[in-house]
């Protein structure tokens, strides 16, 4: 039940990552299965960027299905073909050529909010108090949400390592399954 959502999402992340990710050096990887829904990431994000606790101004949000115990962190994926960049009428959003991060230039932003509506992850939000776009900037290379998440639901890894990481996690599950079927001592017995 819960697993369906999780796998769909994981697949989504993977599909996205498997596109051209050569330019971005490191990627924020989300693992909903490990998320316990504490929202520490939301708090630390707002404390870092806004100097206040304000989940609504956080760049990352945990979306929950309480009855299914599913918690999915939603955050900007810094897409290879970002819809927000394509759709932005003033080029306020652009993909930084150096590191592949999707950045917002606040001086150019006219506040039309098309990016908010178009992002498939809902990862861009509108700060009603200050009238500006809120989106993840990976905290100058040290994402605070990753640092505070000790459960590895959020990881910041090199792009080329991501698939390997996923493979390893998938393989781990498979090996657990194998030991479940054939017993723990299978390999030891040789």
């Amino acid at each position, binding site marked *: 039940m819960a697993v369906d959502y999780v796998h769909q999402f994981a697949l989504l992340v993977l599909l996205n990552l498997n596109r051209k990710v050569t330019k971005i050096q490191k990627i924020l990887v989300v693992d909903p299965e490990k998320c*316990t829904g504490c929202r520490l990431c939301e708090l630390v994000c707002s404390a870092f960027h806004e100097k206040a*606790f304000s989940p609504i*101004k956080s760049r990352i949000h945990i979306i929950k299905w309480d009855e299914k115990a599913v918690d999915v962190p939603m955050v900007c994926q810094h897409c290879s073909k970002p819809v927000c960049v394509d759709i932005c009428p003033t080029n306020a959003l652009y993909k930084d050529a150096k590191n592949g991060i999707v950045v917002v230039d606040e001086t150019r932003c006219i506040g039309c909010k098309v990016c908010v509506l178009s992002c498939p992850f809902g990862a861009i939000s509108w700060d009603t108090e200050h009238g500006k776009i809120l989106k993840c900037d990976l905290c100058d290379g040290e994402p605070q949400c990753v640092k505070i998440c000790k459960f590895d639901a959020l990881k910041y890894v090199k792009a080329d390592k991501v698939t390997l990481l996923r493979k390893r996690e998938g393989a781990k599950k498979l090996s657990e399954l194998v030991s479940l079927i054939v017993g723990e001592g299978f390999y030891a017995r040789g």
Partner: protein
Amino acid sequence: MEFKGGYAGKILWINLSEKRIKKEPLPKDLAYNYLGGLGFVSRILFDLIKPKIDPLSPENVLAFATGPLTGTLFPQASRYIVAAKSPLTDIWGSAHSAGFWGPELKFAGYDMIIIRGRAEKPVYIWINDDYVEILDASHLWGLNVLETEDIIRRDHGDNKIRVACIGPAGEKLVRFAAVMNDKCRAAARSGMGTVMGSKNLKAIAVRGSKDIKIADPNRYLKIIKEFQQRMLNNPFTPSRIKYGTNNLIELMQEIGRLPTYNMKQGVFEEYHKISGEYIRTHYLIKPRACFACVQRCGRHTAVPEGPYAYVGGGPEFEGLSALGSRCGVSHTEAVLYANHLCNLYGMDVISCGATISWAMECYEKGIITERDTGGLALKWGDPELLVKLVKMIAFREGFGNLLAEGSWRAARKIGHGAEKYVMHVKKQEIAGQEPRAQKSMGLASATAARGADHLYAFPVLDEVGFNEEIKRRFGEQYLPEMADRLNPKYKGIMVAECENFAAVVESVGVCKYGTMIPPEFYYEDIALALEITVGFKFTSTELRKIGERIVNLNRAFNAREGVTRKDDTLPERFLKEPAPKGPAKGQIVELNQMLDEYYIHREWDLKNGLPTKKKLEELNLSDVVGQLERIGILLQ
């Protein structure tokens, strides 16, 4: 005056009789002298609630409060407190809970809600930042906790709304009904849900989008990350994440403190069937955290099929022991399901299980017969009966109607010596700590302000012997006696000091996991957190004094209701009958010795157990002295 951070800065006053809503700024001196949470409600309800009122009348006042650290990054800072005069104990009543509701209330801009009067028809309160409204709840009345939250979220079209509500038990005025928030978190004890029900208030739904400011943002993140790291490095944290509080079943069995058969004994032969390991391997879906918590003791469990199938939150240790070993039930799925039903209907699992187990013992002794129960045979360990009784209590059906009054009131109605088997202090059922196996817990139950309660003091330093921590908090001279759970010596001092600190913990909005057990943070850490979050500069001594002030104020509240030393007692079973088996075999609770030490340490009068005039004046509570004297309570 503005606060630099931490506080939301506003109090919300709601009068349900007059349908009036008022917002007032939070007075700075209230914040400075009482911190928040328990401190706020203690002061405000002492002033607002008149002595000797009926707790279920509109005159009772219900207050919800958060602390200055609620909703911040301090480890496990997600708690709120709800308080009123208790319909179960007829004295001070309060209960606290974590989850997400408390922080959401602060993000909506309020530190506290004070509710007076009674609505004519069922209503709920809808708070969306500055917009506050009293709405009709006739469509919600009768629904369980899960349905209520779902429908409120659907009606307002927002999945992030946080709801604190009552279930059918609160509506039917079951005396130990809980306020439930976030579906499976309970502010359970002393019948706060009952008070909500008596006010025709079904729910308080909150959605907030404001900021909580930080007084010192430059130092904040660095310091708080160290706190987080300390919590993570604590050797208790991994097992909390793995088992929640469920593995306490194994631990309590080991020290003979697991309440079994209505606390006749402290060991349960079939404990492994309700143990943390068994539940983790068979029924756990995932640990789920409260807001901003690194310990994640919350459980999400499921029984996939059969008559006890469910998916939902819980259980934790108290539910497992009260509905399991205490009633002699070892059928895991039935215990889990009964716990789930308590959540669904909004009831305190402790009082519910304890009342059922009292009835079972009376049935065994022939005091309650099938004539009283309407044909039910109340046999120890019957899983079907357990589940049936939980439902009957929640809806006050048949024999459940009697049990819904709580064991003390039910025993008075039954008579024939049934009172002797009520495991209560001040009419509230004792929680899952067999006091003969841990003397400090016996004393804590006897002195707690809201009737029998393990959390008011939560003296756990002797549970597994935190010698280092005792040395740090009290001094080396108290070792080894203070660390020995079977030795009554120094327990009076320990319980009094734990009460003071617990009052501070409940006031700032922090969880007792991390502060009391494991004892990672103490006054100096709270003081530092307050400094960087709020801008208050307290010393440890000053904070301790605030805690002491709150405990004395709660005691004064109870003194007005007639509580004296004679009420600070335990059931005869613990004072006279030696524990029959297990590691604590042969032990009784040396209560009087501990009580004397407790009152002396508190500088209270030894004879009547009340604060002295001098003590109250020293704590800046001179007005309280006057109030007590006006109604004829003479202080020494």
